Structures are given as C-alpha cells and as structure tokens.
C-alpha cells in the first residue's frame, strides 16, 4: 500500500512540535526561534515573505537566530532578498539554496556571496514566474508571512499591503505546508479577513510592526529639467500617438515626471480621458494630482505605499478597497493584469546595449528583477485587441493577412543617456554578460530582452524600434538617441538622419517640443508638500521625505 498521506503526517508532526511554544495558535515574539527550530527540518523549502515593499522581519530575525546545528541547508524560496537577515542565514549555514526574484538594497552583498559560493543559486525570477513555481516545483514546506493583525483563530488582516501573502499561503497551505504569520497585534476581531484562519497555523505577535519600504515615493523636488523633457516627449510621442489608456509605470523619476505632467502638459495637449485612464500600479504619491484632476479611472495595486492609506480610503472609486475601507493589493493578480491587460509598460533601466537588451545588473550588484521583465514583455497568450495594441502590431509587421495579425504590447525604456557619476546608459556589452560568465549562470540576467522593447526614449529623442527592419537599422536607431555616450558618438550620422526622415527617430523639435520649455514649473507638484496639498491633507508622507 503506498502511503498517500506522508506529507500530511509530516505536517501534523511539525504542528505538534510547534504547539509547545504556542498558546492555541498564538506565539510570543521571544519564542519565534524556538518555534522555528521545532517546526523546521534540515533541507526544508521555506518561503520567507518579503518583496520590494513589506517584510516579515520579525520572523526573518527569528530564522537568522536558529542554531545551524539543528536547522541547516534550507532552500529559501522568496520574492525578495532585502533584509540583512535574508543573507545572514546563508552565512551561518541555516540556508543553502536560493530561488528569488528581487534584491534591491542587498544587491552588492548577494553578488559577493554568489562569487564566494556561499549561496547555491537556483535562478533569479520575475515575481509572477516565481509565484508560478510555488505551485509546480518550488512548493514551500513552511511559509513565514506578515500581516497587520490576527485574531486568536488565525484570521488574518494584511492591511493595505496584502501583496504576496495570498499566493504564498495558497501554495503552502493547500499542499501540506505550514503557515506562520507575524502580526503587529492580536485582536478580538480583524477589520477584514484577508486570509481565513484555517490556513494559518501559528500567529506570532511581533515585537515591532513589520517593515515597509516607501519604494515608490519619488520627491518632485528632485526632478530635473532633463527628466521633464523626456516625460514631455513620452506623453506627446507615445501616449498620445498610440492612445495609451491601460498601462503600468516603472519606479523611476522619469515616469513619476510623466505622472506630474498629466494634469498640466497633458491637459494642455487635450489628452485628458484619452490616455492613462486604467492602471496596474502601486499607489504612487506622484499620481495624486492626476487622480485629483480626474485623469484616472482606476488603479489596481501590487502593494500599497507608505503614507497613502488614508488617501486611498477616501478614493474607493479609483482603488480596490475592502469592506473595511482599506486598500486590497495583490501582487500576483496585479502582475497578471500588467502582463495581459495593459497595453504599455514604461520604465527605466541602468544599461541598454546595441540591440536593445537592458539590465539593471552591474558587475558589483545583482539587483534581481522584481516585476519589470514580466510587465515589460509582450504576452503571446493575449487574444483581445485594443487600438494601441493593434497600432503597435501594424508597425511591427508590414505584410500578411490583417486577420492573422497579432498586436504588440508597447514596452518603452525611458532613460537618460548618462546615469549618476556620468556613467553611460548605452553600452556595447551589458555588465550582466560578465556577471553570467563569472558566476557560471546559464542565462545572463537581462531585465528586458531586445525583442520585447518597442521604444527607447532619451533626452535626445525617441527611437521606435518597431519600425526598424533589420539589425543595422535597430543599432543605428539606438545609437541615434544615445546622446554623447561612446555608443551615441559612434553613430553613422547619415543613417541616423535617414531614420529620422522616416520617423523611426524623432527629436524633440520633430515633436514640436523645445528643450527650453522643459521647466519645473510644468510639474503639477514640485514638492512632497504639494502632493499633500493635492490630496487635501490625506497623504501622510514618511518623515524622511518631509521638509516641514
């Protein structure tokens, strides 16, 4: 007789071992490490919740404090390597293998540990891709998650930062795994049930509220004239040109500038209602003026943003909110929305090569991918048309039966030709290639592949790669907007002018834009305080962004 319930039995044994440190489901913060040492087994696949925003930090500290004699060689599967503890477990030997997606602040250390062989790396994924593998071949035995509050039965309120939690719980609980949640407080009754209590095995009352990084707050005070120029060109040359209504924005200053130009420059161009109405986007504070001006119909969010909660509560027509009034975010659904229901992704990158491959990896930093490669890719499974998608498709294909023509998602790279410290954005060869060689990765960590990119916008102009008919045209189109970087200065001037004559390259003046008009007075908000005013005092920015 085969044993069809061995996983279930193992789970029950873990539960039983953990009960010694719990009162019902509730565990005090001081007992976290004891609990984890009781329920974990060497070699376990463990999902520690944490992405580019929220962090199950109390559980991360508890895990890092585990005795490597007892708990070792764990296989960590998690969205983000963000906290120092996420890497400490590899230093001590508590963990050995890693599959992840994003690593912003720990990018330099993770690179060092990869070179040093401290981490056996499976792969760096996109968020959606990693979530998918939770249900196929990376299903966790134990999940460590974070929420705002829980009752004694384990009913969990995640608050506005629901993010990855439902996905992680779904994959773990329903496949014989154990779910441990840290919460800021135990309450009699949760404001809303984001995760039903029967899916939560233990609830840890954390010593401090879980950490959330204000990753999507861009201070308008730091926006430059160049970023404003690029934003103007994008609005006129892409948003208006393609009538882009459904979209996702990246995290950079360029896209934040676009958000702040909608109610001013966009309004002047008469574009209100015709572009940028439906969004898959975190609640960017810089979107407030556009929302308040009536540009935005609705926004679905991956996560929340620090300080935006009160504002979101008061704008339920725009945001997805629960019965309690607060935001309901969901990273997996929003990533899916960005992939299939948005006609454009527009974001920044650190390096672009001559073909248009882009990467945020530098030789000393492995930042991971997060969601950008997913949002910034053309989904071949898409079947519904839209004017934007069809127009891009027509530009890409010149011939064939129109009824068999596939549309194209707009994938736009919005970059300044030079980054910080006069480092060129355009390069002959991506640093990601060196990294792959040095660490023996089979795939170079490319953020967005060249064949997905449709446009590159710089302060020098817009290159429409859809209209390029061969590799040489493509290279010259890229060189033609690469400014004074070595790549840009290496252009064939005659070919670039020919591309400009065909509209493949469009300069600011071709769009009727003077660089001299790119002025900060165009921004709907020039400071965080202006955003607070736009929100009617509902936006409550974190302390580090205040100057009042």
């Amino acid at each position: 007789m085969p044993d069809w319930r061995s996983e279930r039995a193992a789970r029950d044994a873990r539960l039983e071992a953990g009960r010694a440190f719990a009162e019902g489901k509730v565990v005090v913060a001081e007992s976290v490490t004891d609990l984890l040492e009781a329920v974990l087994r060497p070699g376990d696949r463990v999902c520690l919740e944490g992405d580019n925003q929220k962090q199950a930090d109390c559980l991360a500290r508890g895990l890092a404090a585990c005795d490597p004699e007892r708990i070792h060689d764990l296989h960590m599967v998690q969205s983000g390597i963000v906290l120092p503890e996420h890497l400490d477990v590899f230093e001590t030997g508590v963990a050995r293998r890693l599959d992840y997606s994003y690593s912003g602040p720990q990018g330099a250390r993770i690179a060092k540990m990869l070179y040093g062989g401290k981490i056996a790396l499976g792969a760096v994924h996109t968020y959606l891709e990693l979530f998918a593998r939770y249900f196929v071949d990376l299903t966790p035995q134990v999940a460590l998650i974070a929420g705002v509050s829980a009752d004694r039965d384990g009913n969990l309120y995640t608050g506005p930062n629901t993010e990855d939690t439902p996905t992680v719980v779904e994959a773990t609980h329903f496949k014989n795994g154990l779910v441990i949640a840290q919460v800021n407080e135990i309450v009699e009754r949760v404001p809303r049930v984001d995760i039903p209590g029967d899916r939560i095995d233990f609830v840890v009352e954390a010593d401090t509220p879980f950490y959330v990084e204000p990753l999507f707050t861009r201070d308008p005070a730091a926006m430059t004239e160049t970023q404003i120029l690029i934003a103007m060109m994008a609005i006129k040359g892409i948003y208006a040109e393609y009538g882009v209504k459904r979209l996702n924005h990246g995290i950079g200053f360029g896209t934040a500038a676009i958000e702040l130009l909608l109610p001013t420059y966009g309004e002047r161009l008469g574009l209100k209602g015709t572009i940028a109405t439906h969004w898959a986007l975190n609640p960017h504070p810089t979107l407030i003026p556009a929302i308040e001006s009536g540009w935005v119909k609705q926004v679905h969010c991956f996560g929340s943003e620090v300080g935006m909660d009160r504002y979101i509560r008061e704008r339920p027509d725009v945001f997805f909110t629960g019965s309690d009034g607060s935001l309901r975010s969901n990273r997996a659904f929003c990533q899916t929305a960005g992939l299939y229901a948005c006609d454009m992704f527009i974001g920044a990158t650190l390096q672009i090569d001559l073909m248009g491959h882009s990467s945020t990896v530098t030789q000393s930093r492995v930042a991971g991918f997060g969601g950008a490669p997913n949002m910034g890719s053309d989904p071949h499974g898409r079947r519904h048309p839209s004017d934007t998608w069809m127009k891009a498709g027509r530009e890409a294909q010149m011939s064939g039966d129109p009824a068999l023509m596939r549309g194209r998602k707009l994938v736009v790279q919005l970059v300044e030709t030079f980054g910080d410290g006069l480092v060129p954005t355009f390069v002959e060869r991506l640093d990601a290639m060196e990294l792959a060689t040095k660490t023996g990765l089979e795939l170079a960590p490319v953020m967005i592949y060249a064949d997905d990119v449709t446009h590159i916008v710089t302060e020098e102009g817009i290159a429409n790669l859809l209209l390029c008919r061969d590799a040489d045209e493509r290279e010259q189109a890229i060189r033609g907007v690469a400014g004074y970087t070595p790549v840009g200065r290496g252009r064939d001037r005659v070919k670039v002018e020919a591309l400009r004559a065909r509209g493949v390259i469009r300069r600011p003046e071709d769009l009727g834009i003077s660089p001299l008009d790119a002025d900060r007075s165009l921004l709907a908000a020039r400071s965080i305080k202006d955003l607070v005013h736009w929100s009617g005092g509902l936006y409550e920015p974190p302390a580090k962004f205040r100057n009042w």
Partner: protein
Amino acid sequence: MAAADAVSWYEASARQRVAAFLDADSFEEFVDPTERAMSPHLPLFELPRAFDDGIVVGRGRLDGRPVLVAAQEGRFMGGAFGEVHGAKLVGLLRAALDGKPSAVLILFDTGGVRLQEANAGETAIAEAMRAIAEVRAAGIPVIGLIGGRAGAYGGGGLIAGTCARLAVSEGGRISVSGPEVIETNRGAEEFDSRDRALVWRTMGGKHRRLTGGADAYVADTVAAFREAALDLIGRAPAFDRATLEAEQARLEARIARFGDCRDGAEIWARLGINDPDAVPAMTDAAFLETAAGVPEASHDAR
C-alpha cells in the same frame, strides 16, 4: 520669468529671486559675474568656482523705493561664506551708510562658513554683523528673508539674528548648529537628523514664527516675500538700548517659560495652541490665523 506670485522662493535661484522680488528690470548688480570675482582659494581644493562666488549684490527698487539687496545662492557650496562671498555682503552693507537706501534686504540661503575658507568666512560674518549694527543705527532697516533650501545656518543664523526684521517661509530654517552637526557631536539620541519633521519642529519657519524668532511668515512665493518685506521695512525697530533691553527681556522670558520643553510641539501647546500636533501640516492660511492668535510671536524686540 514667470510672475512673482508663481515663482517658488525655495526653488528659485538667487538671481531669479532678486529679479522677481524687485520692481521689474530695476536691479543693477555690483561686481557682476563678468568681473569674475571668484574665490582665490577653491582651486587649491580642486573645487569649481562660481563667477559671483555664490552671492548676488546690488541695488534696485521695491515698490519704487531704492533698496540694496544681497541674495545668497544656496546651491553653490551650500551658500556658504567664503572670502569673496562675505566681502560682497560687507561691501553692500557699508555702501548703505553712504547711499541711504530705504532698506537693505538680505536673502539668506546659507549653511554658514565655507570650510575651505573658514577664517575668512568667519571674520566676514563678524564684519557683516558690525556693519548691520551701523546701518541699523543710521536708521536704515536691514531685513532678512529666509526660505531657501540651505536655510540660515551657522554664522548665517547669527547675521539673521542681527537684522531688524526677519520673514520666513515654512521651508526656511534658522539655526546655529545644524542637525547633522549636532548628531555628529552628540549622537542620534540628541538629534536624529534624518527625522525631518523633528528638524522643522526645532528650527523650521513655523516654529520660528510662533516663538517670535521671525516677524513674518509667508507662503513660498517670491510675491509673498516681497509683500512681507514691504511691510517689515515700515516697522523696523530702532537699534538702541531700549530695543536691546526689550530683546533681553523677551529672550529671558522665553527661556524661563519654555526652557524645560523637549520639543517644538510642547512649546506651541504652552503658547495656547489647541492642537499643536496639527501645526506642521497646516496650510499657510490656517497657520497665519493660528500665529495671529499668539501674542508672543509679534514684538519690536530685535
């Protein structure tokens, strides 16, 4: 140049402030950039220089009245006092004794002394304070306007305190030691400089106005500063013993009353403000109304 009511003081450069602040086209610069009066010392430190050494001085008209004006550029070396920078301000103040303008206006935007020229900067600050005393004693109001990104720190704060009147916007800060300096010397427990709200509760425009450390609070526009300056010129206190006796009494009373307060909000509560925690978020209009109800905020003791 956009209209003065649309120009953010905080965002504008020193030159933009002066141009929009004075009557249109009335500004005449002294030792202008074409004279290339640059720092003789910065090259030693491999640092770039500025043609005006970070300060614009000259004459113009304010509502028709002749005034002298100095404006610091907070983005060049933090608006700090170097040898040339300081000498331009000192020269302007000395010129006031000759020319008898209706006022001297100092548009502060400074972190204090420029370390690369520290001795020259510190001495120039002392010279400027002496010159202000003489200009004031001659009956010419010296008005300080503070709303730039660098604030009025270090010796800049002391010069500000020597002026007859001060106008400040919410973003303006006036202080001797900066938060980072205090944190470096005394630790983050004494002053966590990354806690921006704390910085503003301690030395920001609203706190200074409520406690009488500034005589006017204005919106962050050039037009608002202009209006405030016109008003303050008309009611500048004399520079005499009576004024300084009054200031002595005012400052002693402040320390007696608030000396045990740990935070700006505690002081505001003692000043009778109902909801002190709401002060930082108040709009300019609401704040002006609140400040109008605080008798300690307005005085002639400076």
